[in-house]
C-alpha cells in the first residue's frame, strides 16, 4: 500500500522549493550593494542571505530549547525534553554554520578570518554553551534527573542569546547592524534597499520553514531513541526474569 503524505512531507517539499528559489533571490535578484568599495566585498555580501538564514535556524533552535525546557519543568512530559534536546542540537549545528559563513564573509571585508569582536565572541560563547548542554546531558545517567538538569541549564543558557543579539548595540564593534540603526564603526555595512530587504525576508522565511522540518525530524529521532530504550529494557527484563515481565505499553 502506498504511504499517505503527511504534513511533514508536504512541509519538506515546500522547504526544498523555497531553498531552490532562495538561490535565485540571494544570488541574482538581490543586487550588489553599491556602497561597498571592491568587487570582492560586493560579491561576498551575498553570503549575508545565507549567514542570516543560519542565524534564524540557530536562534529558533535555542529559543525552542528555552520554551521546551520551561514546558518540561512545568509538565514533566518526556516529549518536551525530546523537543528541547533536538532544538539544542539544531542550534549548535547551525550556530557553527553562522560562525563559518561569517568568517568567510569577514576575510574579504575585514581582511581577517576572525577577530575577537564582541558579536563574534558572544556568538561563539553561545554555541559553546549549547554544545556543553548536549555533552553535559550525557553526564547524568538517570533520565528524569538528566531532563530536569537540562531544563534548568537550557533556561539559563538562553540568556546568552539576547546578549549576543544586543552585543552590536551595546558595545563598540565592527560588525554591521542590519536592524535598528546604523553603527558608525561597522566595516562592510550596507543599506537595506527594497530588493535587498525582499531577499533578506525571503531567506528568513525559507530557513524558518527548513528549521521546522529539521525540528520535526530530529524530534522523531529522539522519540524513536526513547522507544528503543524502553524495548531494550523490556527484552532485558524478560530474559532475566524468565519472561514474566508485563506487556509493553505502546
Amino acid at each position, binding site marked *: 500500500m502506498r504511504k499517505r503524505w503527511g504534513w511533514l512531507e508536504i512541509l519538506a517539499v515546500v522547504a526544498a522549493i523555497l531553498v531552490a528559489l532562495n538561490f535565485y533571490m540571494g*544570488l541574482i535578484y538581490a543586487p550588489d550593494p553599491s556602497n561597498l568599495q571592491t568587487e*570582492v566585498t560586493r*560579491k*561576498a555580501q*551575498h*553570503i549575508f542571505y*545565507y*549567514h542570516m*538564514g*543560519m542565524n534564524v535556524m540557530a536562534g529558533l533552535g535555542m529559543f525552542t530549547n528555552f520554551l521546551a525546557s520551561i514546558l518540561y519543568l512545568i509538565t514533566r512530559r518526556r516529549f518536551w525534553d525530546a523537543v528541547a534536546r533536538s532544538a539544542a542540537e539544531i542550534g549548535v*549545528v*547551525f550556530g*557553527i*554554520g553562522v560562525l*563559518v*559563513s561569517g568568517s*568567510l*564573509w569577514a*576575510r*574579504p571585508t575585514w581582511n581577517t578570518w576572525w577577530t575577537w569582536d564582541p558579536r563574534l565572541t558572544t556568538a561563539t560563547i553561545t554555541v559553546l554553551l549549547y554544545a556543553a548542554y548536549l555533552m553535559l546531558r550525557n553526564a547524568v545517567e538517570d533520565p528524569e534527573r538528566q531532563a530536569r538538569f537540562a531544563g534548568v541549564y537550557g533556561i539559563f543558557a538562553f540568556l546568552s542569546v539576547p546578549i549576543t543579539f544586543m552585543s552590536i548595540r551595546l558595545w563598540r564593534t565592527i560588525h554591521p547592524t542590519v536592524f535598528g540603526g546604523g553603527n558608525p564603526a561597522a566595516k562592510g555595512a550596507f543599506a537595506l534597499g527594497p530588493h535587498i530587504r525582499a531577499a533578506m525576508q525571503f531567506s528568513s522565511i525559507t530557513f524558518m520553514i*527548513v528549521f521546522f522540518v*529539521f525540528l520535526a*525530524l*530530529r524530534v*522523531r*529521532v529522539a522519540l*524513536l*531513541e526513547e*522507544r*528503543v530504550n524502553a*524495548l*531494550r529494557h*523490556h*527484552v532485558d527484563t*524478560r*530474559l532475566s526474569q*524468565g*519472561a*514474566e515481565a508485563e506487556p*509493553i505499553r505502546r
Partner: protein
Amino acid sequence: MIFLTAALIAIWLLTFAYLLYILQRIHSLEQEIRSLEVLLEETRQASQG
C-alpha cells in the same frame, strides 16, 4: 566570488550532511525497533510454549 562559493558550499554541505545523518538515524532506529519487537515476541512465545 571565491568566498561566496566557499560559503555556499560550506552552508549547504553542513545542512545536507545533518539532514542525511538524521534520516539515516531514523532508518536505523526503526530497524532496531522492528528487531527488538520480534525478539520480544519470541521471548513471549517461548514463555507460553
